[in-house]
């Protein structure tokens, strides 16, 4: 079992979810998304975002438009489509399920460790 592999798989699954979440709050261009995802410690290499965005766009979950910027060349602003919103809803509910389950188990762990501590005492 490769721990790094598993970790990156987990993160990868999350990344698309998080990108959709970000875009639900409002349209953004790639660099803004990178900044936020970096703040959230979700990505290390910026290059990983671009294949993902293109994939989501090709799947019809995202769309983009070109917008003039005050500085530099025009930027690609991504926005979430209705299909993307549906998709996000499903992801959200499954995430809720997963987090509930994991939290349940985690809280079990803590209670068990607490009880074991108690019994040891």
């Amino acid at each position, binding site marked *: 079992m490769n721990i*790094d592999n598993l970790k990156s798989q987990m993160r990868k699954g999350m990344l698309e979810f998080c990108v959709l979440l970000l875009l639900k709050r409002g349209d953004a261009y*790639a660099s803004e998304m990178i900044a936020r995802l970096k703040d959230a410690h*979700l990505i*290390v*290499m910026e*290059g990983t975002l*671009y294949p993902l965005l*293109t994939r989501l766009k090709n799947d019809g979950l995202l769309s983009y438009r070109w917008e003039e910027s005050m500085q*530099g060349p025009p930027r690609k602003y991504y926005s979430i489509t209705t299909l993307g919103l549906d998709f996000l809803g499903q992801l959200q509910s499954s995430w809720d399920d997963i987090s509930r389950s994991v939290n349940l188990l985690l809280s079990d762990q803590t209670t068990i460790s607490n009880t074991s501590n108690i019994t040891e005492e």
Partner: protein
Amino acid sequence: MKKTFPVNINGNIFYIDEDAYKLLLDYLSQLRTTFTGAEGEEIVNDIESRISEHFDERIRLGANVIVLEDVNRVIETMGRPEELSDESRPETDSQEETTDSCGSQNVPPFNGTQACPPPPIHKRLFRDIRHRVFGGVIAGLSQYFDWDVTVMRILFVVLTLCTYFWPCVIIYLVAWMVIPVARTPREILEMQGQPVTLDNIGQTVINNSVPPAAPVPDTDTSSFAYFVNTFFSIAAKFILGFFGLIAAVTAIVFCCLILVAICGIIIYWTSGATTILDGLDILETAAPYISSWGGIAIFCAILLPALAVTWVASCVLFKAKTPSKAGIITAVILEIIIIAIAAVLMGLADHYEDQAFCLFYSMAQPISFSLTSSIDSLSQVAETAASIPSLTRNAVIPSAILVAPAITA
């Protein structure tokens, strides 16, 4: 001091050092090999625009020029192509570490030469006509075994001499026939044992177009290179040349026949006219030589069409320069004049010497003359060659002794 280029990345102009530029170019082209198709194009463009933003940031913070370090940092930030390609294929192992261990990844730093993802190297034996002497067999073998080509050539020559020439020559010719020539960039890469990536192919194309020592194979149909290109083409040329020779000989014979016929007609017509010259004593005394001169004129009259036929044959075979219209006209006029001279001379000779076979006799004369004289000159050359050692001893060494002080002085 470094050379700097202005580059346009996504609409922004940056001044970038030469080495940094090369690294960036490598990085982008490797990204292009990683992300292919229309989708890949879009991804690479997006990454490029992000790189442009990073550089812009760098300039705004006070840098004047993008240096190697900046490019390295950007590559580190964006991710190496092999890591990114792993990202896009979830089933393969990813090298991405935990979020906060960016600096501690023990993957080697990106350098432009490494190919990614490295496909299995598949080396094949080709003839390398870019570095050939004859057919590029030795050059190809040296590529295949990774030996120095000069050493291999010397070894081959030594081996040829040791085996009394023919076995090695035959082996070489067979190898020439059997081993295919590396034509496409892909084949050249396979010959060199380099991985066939888009980047490398591009590099090969660039390399091939630049050096003057590498003729572009097969595209120049007019040059000698095309002619030597393959053994089969040479064999075909030899066969063609053989038939060409037969055709030329036939043509020469025909020319002779036509010439003789024309001469005969002219002699017949002009025999009366030549009697006008009867009274001139000078012709009387010159009579024995007239037939010789007539023979030479006939020889020239034959030689000209023969040369013409050879030229036409070489035009067809070797794509030699075709003669100009003026040249053809001049040759035809010259031919007519020579025939006329030959006819008049032979007519005179016929008149004075009154020999039935004068024509044939005088034709044979210059040929036999040139044969005996050439044999004479050959024997003379041989004698001279034999006398060279004594000649050196007697003439060269003393003269050297005389000249040497003069030079040093």
